[in-house]
């Protein structure tokens, strides 16, 4: 349903993505792994419409979206939880979450979704009136994921899912993502913890220096000797 075809992306004059293609099918969890600075975040930013590809195209439900502004893309059902959280620091947790349901699709069910989020992340409920600028790093990460979910996306893209979360919470979050996926949300995720990522992913792509170098099912990639050596250090 999300079809990225041969995109080239630049920052100014510097090319960062070279001829990248990847597909996400309905109901899948797809992981994007790769070394630091490989271009993973850039790929997500391009899908979200923050960056425009110089070449290639991005299709969503067979329609071009790479020419659209990011708000239109969100409206169509693709949401990104950005690297570094990017919460609205001087708004409360609750206000941040409510803004998650900004797309018209999600507004009607905003209250129900809010309740759900508090169930998934009880710590957020405790801090719902605190300004997110003063949350701890991990709390911010929870808030960011919850805010993304509030928009009831068809495709949820998470950049650095487990960044800064305690081991316990990492597991919790990964489990949550799986659950959300089982309820019908398609997921595209990036995580430095290749181990986690490949375990829950149905399929994965490996990005190196801006090029896709490998792709396959999550579990089978986990067995791949090259990958094990390069990313797991085993």
């Amino acid at each position, binding site marked *: 349903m999300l079809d990225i075809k041969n995109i080239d992306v630049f*920052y*100014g*004059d510097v090319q960062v993505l070279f001829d990248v293609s990847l597909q996400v099918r309905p109901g899948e969890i797809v992981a994007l792994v790769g070394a630091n600075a490989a271009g993973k975040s850039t790929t997500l*930013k391009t899908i979200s419409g*923050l*960056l*425009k590809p110089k070449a290639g195209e991005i299709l969503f439900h067979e329609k071009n979206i790479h020419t659209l502004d*990011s708000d239109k893309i969100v409206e169509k059902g693709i949401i990104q939880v*950005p*690297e*570094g*959280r*990017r*919460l609205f*620091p001087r708004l409360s947790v609750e206000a941040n979450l409510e803004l998650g349901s900004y797309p018209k699709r999600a507004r009607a069910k905003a209250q129900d979704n809010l309740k759900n989020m508090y169930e998934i992340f009880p710590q957020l409920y405790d801090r719902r009136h605190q300004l997110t600028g003063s949350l701890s790093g991990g709390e*911010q990460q929870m808030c960011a994921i919850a805010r993304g979910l509030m928009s009831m996306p068809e495709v949820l893209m998470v950049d650095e899912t487990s*960044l800064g979360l305690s081991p316990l919470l990492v597991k919790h979050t990964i489990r949550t993502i799986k659950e959300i996926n089982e309820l019908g949300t398609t997921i595209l995720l990036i995580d430095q913890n290749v181990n986690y990522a490949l375990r829950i992913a149905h399929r994965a792509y490996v990005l190196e220096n801006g090029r896709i170098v490998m792709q396959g099912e999550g579990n089978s990639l986990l067995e791949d000797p090259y990958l094990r050596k390069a990313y797991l250090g085993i």
Partner: protein
Amino acid sequence: MNKQKKGMLIGLLIVTLLLPYLIQNEFYLHVLTSVLVYAGLASSWNILGGFAGQLSLGHTAFFGIGAYTSTLLYVYLGISPWIGMLVGGFLAVIVSFITLYPSFRLRGVFFAMVTISFGEVIRILFVYFRNKTTIPYGVTINYEPSFTNMIFDGPMGYFYVSFVYLLIILVISWKVKNSRLGFFLNALKENDEAAQALGVPTSASKFKALAISAFFTAIGGTILVQNILYIEPESAFSTSISTELALISIIGGIGTVAGPVIGAIILIPLGESLRALFSGSVQGLHLVLYGVLLMVVVLKNPNGIMGFISSFNKKRKKKREVQLEEVPDVRG
């Protein structure tokens, strides 16, 4: 600095020094002198506003203090403006510590708002206390040309005084910029807390920048008033002086050494020529044009002419993409 650049600078210096002989017209010389003084004033502003990133819109207070101190000392006590100018400078430094120094915890527009208010308060207080004395509202300096009086019988003298003033402040700017202090100011401008974590003495650094800035703004005040030979609170403490100094720096390139000079070279003659060309025809027309040009220049060159030049040099195209990294408080 490489040899070529050095040669160019020296050449520029000599040409400037000869300008009064090349330009016979006294009005143009007068405008040129204004350019020099305003370039000096803006450079002084730039040390605090540009190097330290504290966008003061209250510099009119220092300007006014400098101008008034030397004038009153000269007119009532016969003290030469050369001395009065230094007294005014130190007075401005003292006032700046009382007013701007506590405001340093504020940043950006908030600092600007507080400093505008300070400028206004000082003007109002001045008018109030002036009323309690026998000093007239407007003070005229008698036209008695002599070097000690810092009054000259022609624009030539003013030109060279202003030239020396600008030269001194430029040298100081350059020294500050390329010293440890310059680095510290730059760092605390970009991220105050990160700078503190690296042991940057944030208060002391701003303190120094403020002192230099206030002192030379006051000196500029004296030089300008000696040129006009008349002073009154309304114009000596007018907020438009503060905004003009900031504006000149912005247009030229804030935070650079040459920026304020370039800004003054553009802005002062622009204002003068618009007024000369259009003020006789339809009321307000020259200012309408000025407003439009100001908007266009500021919006088209947000980093000033210097920014434009350096980006041109590096042949770096402006990034068209919207970038997450553009917003200053990057979290991650």
